């Protein structure tokens, strides 16, 4: 089982400073195996596929002597969200955000970036045209695009580990350091910790076991849902069964565990969207599910995908929604 990270831990973000044209910086630490997730749940795919692992050694966001990043192109939803949340000083340095930045199904920053900020897919020409000095990239960025960006002197910051709040705190601090506004990063972290403290103060009793399940996969130990469940005052049933990561759990196996709470993602921005009720009804209609405690007690809970699959602030939102639905006391 993966040990839980604490706020001071460092996630596996990889920054590749480029010294000379035509070659990657000698300090590159992104040499771990890429995307070694054993399986990917469909509902979580948007984030997990984008953010799958590159287990390099932890590395400071900026190496001594690096020029500050003044033209940043963000190519992950998490960095789209964090760079916006860091405030005007950080936003002013962003010259492009990801193509999914405005998709409310995935992005917690949908609609906030001004139209003048280009939305860019991961194409080399599209990114280079923005003349960035730093690209925040994802693990699935094509090696050709990485090489081309590097060749043209663009530093690459690859966010790689997304296992919960500790990694989020560290990613915030890294991005805040890159935009030279660490105080803004600390404010975001403090906001998060205050929300988690409020959640902990109204933890429901008894502590229910919940499974985050969708299309044959569950989120077990070492996933962002593990932290979400704990923050909401729930236990992660898949973790209790000894599973780790995002793992296949057949419908029959999930039903046989008789989960008291089934958490699913719904393709909507807000929890009161009819799509969330429809998703709950669709899950309840799956064969065998109506016999589970979750269905009997009305505890099949749909959470907007951009919160449940978030690796950023949305994790706290998901925990708050879960706690609210499962009958915790008022804040």
């Amino acid at each position, binding site marked *: 089982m993966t040990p839980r990270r604490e706020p001071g831990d460092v996630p596996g973000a990889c920054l590749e400073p480029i010294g000379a044209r035509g070659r990657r910086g000698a300090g590159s630490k992104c040499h771990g195996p890429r995307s070694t997730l054993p399986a990917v749940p469909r509902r979580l795919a948007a984030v997990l596929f984008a953010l799958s692992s590159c287990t390099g050694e932890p590395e400071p966001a900026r190496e001594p002597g690096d020029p500050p990043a003044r033209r940043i192109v963000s190519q992950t939803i998490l960095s789209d969200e964090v760079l916006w949340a860091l405030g005007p000083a950080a936003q002013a340095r962003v010259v492009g955000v990801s193509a999914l930045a405005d998709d409310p199904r995935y992005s917690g920053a949908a609609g906030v970036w001004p139209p003048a900020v280009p939305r860019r897919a991961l194409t080399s020409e599209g990114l280079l045209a923005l003349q960035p000095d730093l690209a925040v990239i994802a693990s699935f960025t094509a090696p050709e695009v990485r090489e081309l960006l590097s060749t043209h002197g663009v530093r690459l910051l690859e966010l790689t580990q997304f296992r919960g709040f500790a990694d989020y705190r560290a990613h915030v601090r890294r991005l805040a350091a890159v935009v030279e506004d660490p105080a803004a990063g600390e404010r975001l972290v403090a906001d998060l910790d205050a929300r988690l403290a409020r959640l902990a103060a109204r933890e429901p009793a008894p502590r229910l076991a919940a499974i985050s399940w969708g299309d044959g996969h569950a989120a077990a130990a070492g996933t962002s849902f593990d932290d979400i469940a704990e923050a909401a005052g729930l236990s992660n049933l898949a973790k209790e069964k000894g599973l780790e990561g995002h793992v296949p759990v057949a419908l029959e196996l999930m039903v*046989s565990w008789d989960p008291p709470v089934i958490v699913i993602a719904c393709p909507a921005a807000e929890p009161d969207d009819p799509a969330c009720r429809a998703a709950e009804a669709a899950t309840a209609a799956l064969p065998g599910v109506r016999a589970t405690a979750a269905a009997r007690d009305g505890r099949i809970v749909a959470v907007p995908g951009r919160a449940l699959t978030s690796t950023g602030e949305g994790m706290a939102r998901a925990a708050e929604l879960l706690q609210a639905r499962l009958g915790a006391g008022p804040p």
Partner: protein
Amino acid sequence: MKRSTALAAAAIPLALLLSLGTGPGDIGLGEALRTVARRLAGDELDLRGAIVWDLRLPRALLAGLVGAALAAAGALCQGLFRNPMADPGVLGVSSGAALFAVVGLLLGLDRAGLWAIPVVAAVGAAAAMGLLLAAAGRRASLAVLLLAGVALGALCSALITVCQALASHQWDFGLKVVYWLMGSFEGRSWPHLSWALPPCGLGLGLALWLRRDLDALHLGTDAAASLGVDLARLRLLVVVAVGLLVGAATALTGVLAFVGLVAPHVARMSSGPGHRLLVPLAALHGASATIVVDAVARSASGVVIPPGVITSLVGAPFFLWLLRRRGLRGLAS
């Protein structure tokens, strides 16, 4: 009934027993059988009972029905085209079902309910069948019909790729498409079985009814015509039967490769080339094989191995072995 048919028929209940006693829910065959008996007696079922009655039994029956449908469709195609390499996919019907299913997923229709994608895919199968008949013409030769089917299948595959390319930024859509195209019985239950029964029943009935004409066609088109076979009518009915069988199977479970190709050849080893025995025997073999494949797929709880992948993994080497043992000419006879 010949001995081979009796043996093949006996294999189905054995496969069903294996399937009922297999699964990640840790419920053995004895408990599963008692559960079925209790439910048939009208008892209410608890959670473990629901696993047997709502999950295992209907998906095993559906696997059998789908396997029989694909195998019978394969026997019809091989008989119509007098080509041992023909499988139900050559007419493009399954590709049409797949295209419509992918478009349905792209439009988010799967959120409307469990029925949505199967219904959309069935419409796609029917549309592909109609397009095939319109493109080939009622009096088209077998070669024209075959080439029209291949072209239609290629067109549908290209359009599926276009859909995936246009929505490449929607990773959840991409994964749904991949999973659907791999074929699966996961989550299928009584409603799916009830939707599959009418078209599959009609298609199997047609397949059995056409056996005599296919036997005449085996002698050649001229000989068949001299024996009074209306070739245009035979082609039309075979296309309709294959469309019903493959369309329903693909719509409900995705793409299951090789069942329609291999099962008729296995049946032919014991029945000979005559379609009177070949069609029912292929259907029985296809049914039992698909039930077993699904049971094997479910027995591995730590990984997801779609039945469509297993049918390919088992079917392809088996077919190569058959080819080596009997040769292409031997397969045809």
